[in-house]
């Protein structure tokens, strides 16, 4: 079989004459070698190659091709590969763009939100499988976490049996992504690790790199198996169908008819109260466990704020999220230092059992753990300040104002 391709390059220009999108028009003819006259035309392909920084133009060109020119868009992973080649993402998957009407009944609103989240998960699936870029798995995983958070935080909107069932399935899915994501993150840290070691010791990490690569490959094999499984296919299909079906009154879903704003505000109020109360109780002597628990609480609050953003004043929410983010960064860095130390220790143990860890490598890893420990202590010291910067009068007032129960703020 022989395929002859003619590729024409077209540049789309803006008003300045700048190339903003490249199009590669591929026309081909296929047939047996030697039989030139007997060729069949291969369907023409337009490869859209973006230019970094010109996302708007890209979206318009793709829209024009699919709407005005009736071009059929190939499987998203083709596009994703092209995007990746130019170093860009199609959209920011961390934004849930759905605008909610505050008066909408919670049952309907949550269905809409969940449907949007599910689509993000599905959209990131091809990139996750093909490992084009670690960002796909990251976004896949973050969105699954958001779904789990929405299911777990907002109870009483779906019948409890249904909620619990899907929560359990998404937990399975979330857990399936864990090892692969951990492996990616650990590998991404290697250049920084190398830079932290003295010059003569940098190559000592090579055995660790090899170990991590092997572990990553194994983790991804498991992950792809999970994505290929019937269980995953059924989860996506069933959840989609469930969200598309109308809400049926149920005594375990008393909040389904309340306005989404009321339900969201009540939940955010409750979680924010917990963050402020528990955070205030932490002083220099409080054990690390309390910070880890606070980190989880902050995450829950953040997910809720992100999810229900459209119900509140954009500027106020933005300020709140900015303040919360700084606190989360501190708690996150603190936790991250500990997690990395655990990884290094665990890896050292496994490599020793395998027999793949020269002494120099173990010593280098020990050096890294030391630095991480130091970093962790620094973050711990910063906590007091960071929490105070979050739990200001301003923030408390803002929380009270934004998430007041219907019928006026509580005294």
């Amino acid at each position: 079989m022989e395929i002859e391709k003619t590729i024409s390059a077209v540049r789309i220009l803006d008003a300045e004459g700048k190339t903003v999108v490249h199009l590669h028009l591929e026309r081909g003819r296929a047939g047996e070698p030697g039989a030139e006259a007997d060729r069949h035309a291969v369907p023409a392909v337009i490869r859209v190659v973006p230019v970094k920084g010109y996302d708007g133009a890209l979206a318009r060109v793709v829209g024009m091709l699919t709407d005005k020119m009736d071009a059929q868009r190939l499987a998203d992973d083709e596009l994703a590969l092209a995007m990746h080649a130019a170093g860009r993402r199609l959209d920011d998957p961390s934004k849930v763009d759905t605008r909610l009407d505050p008066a909408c009944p919670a049952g309907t609103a949550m269905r809409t939100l969940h449907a949007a989240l599910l689509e993000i998960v599905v959209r990131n699936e091809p990139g996750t499988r093909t490992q084009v870029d670690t960002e796909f798995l990251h976004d896949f995983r973050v969105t699954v976490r958001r779904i789990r958070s929405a299911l777990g935080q907002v109870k009483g909107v779906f019948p409890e049996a249904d909620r619990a069932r899907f929560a359990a399935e998404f937990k399975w899915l979330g857990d399936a992504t864990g090892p692969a994501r951990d492996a990616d993150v650990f590998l991404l840290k290697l250049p920084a690790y190398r830079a932290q070691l003295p010059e003569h010791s940098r190559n000592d990490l090579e055995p660790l790199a090899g170990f991590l690569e092997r572990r990553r490959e194994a983790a991804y094999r498991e992950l792809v198996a999970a994505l290929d499984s019937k269980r995953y296919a059924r989860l996506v299909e069933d959840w989609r169908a469930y969200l598309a079906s109308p809400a049926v009154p149920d005594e375990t879903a008393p909040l389904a008819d309340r306005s989404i704003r009321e339900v969201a505000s009540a939940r955010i109020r409750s979680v924010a109260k917990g963050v402020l109360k528990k955070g205030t109780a932490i002083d220099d002597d409080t054990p690390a466990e309390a910070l880890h628990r606070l980190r989880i609480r902050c995450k829950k609050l953040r997910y809720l704020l992100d999810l229900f953003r459209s119900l509140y004043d954009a500027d106020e929410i933005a300020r709140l999220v900015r303040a919360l983010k700084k606190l989360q960064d501190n708690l996150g860095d603190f936790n991250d230092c500990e997690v990395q130390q655990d990884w290094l220790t665990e890896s050292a143990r496994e490599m020793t059992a395998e027999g793949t860890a020269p002494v120099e490598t173990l010593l280098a890893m020990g050096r890294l753990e030391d630095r991480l420990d130091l970093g962790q202590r620094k973050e711990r010291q910063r906590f007091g300040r960071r929490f105070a910067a979050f739990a200001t009068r301003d923030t408390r007032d803002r929380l009270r104002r934004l998430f007041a129960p219907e019928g006026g703020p509580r005294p």
Partner: protein
Amino acid sequence: MTIFAVYNLKGGVGKTASAVNLAYLSARGGARTLLWDLDPQGAATFYFRVRPKVKGGARRLVRCPKQLDGKIRGSDFDGLDVLPADFSYRSLDIELHEAKKPARRLRRLLDPLRSSYDHVVLDCAPGGSLVSDAVLEAADVLIVPTIPTPLSLRTLALLVKHVRNGIDDPPRVVSFFSMVDRRKAMHRDICNDPRARAVGFCRAVIPYSSVVEQMGIHRAPLPHTMPRHRLSVAFGELWAEILAAASSDEDGKPPAPKRVRRMLDDAIHPERRGA
């Protein structure tokens, strides 16, 4: 990642044209290159046909380092990206001043780009300011286009003295004669000064030519539109010398200001020059 800054206190010496052409040559040589236009005039941005608009202006640029990548645009040339300037860069000084550690901040803005680019070329606004000091701290190599006149040499001496004494981590200083008019005796004499090499001047010299002004019509680097023009050839030689100096193991200390001043003295007193 090596950071090159094209800089001179004086304006109108060919900074932008040089930055644009050298960045292009850098990319053509296979290095992933970013040109950062720091001049609110946005001339380099204009040459690459990029709109001089940066979301959030100078303020967001300085305060949101993670958003830097989103502001970068691919140029029309392989391996060359552009970080555009806009008019709000007039207040880059103030923004740097209000942020902590202004001198280090520019360098830190560039740190996340280490894995994406081999070379960064900074096109700096003329004049001395907080931004220029930040550039001097951030740069590994300082490229100084210098017109061969006494006033320019005087300014070079000032710059070199400041780099030596006022900058914690001084860059390597590489100067070159720019906008040279061989018909002028003064230009010839200064270019031929035997001290020039010791003071850091490259052998390659960029002659004055109206084709540089025409860059504004073609809006593309000169080595792209007119690869065989003597100016393009000169820039090619210049870039090769700059690269060699950048990767040289030799001591990268800036030249001694008094050597530059001796060149200046000779230029001011041509009658002293021997037979």
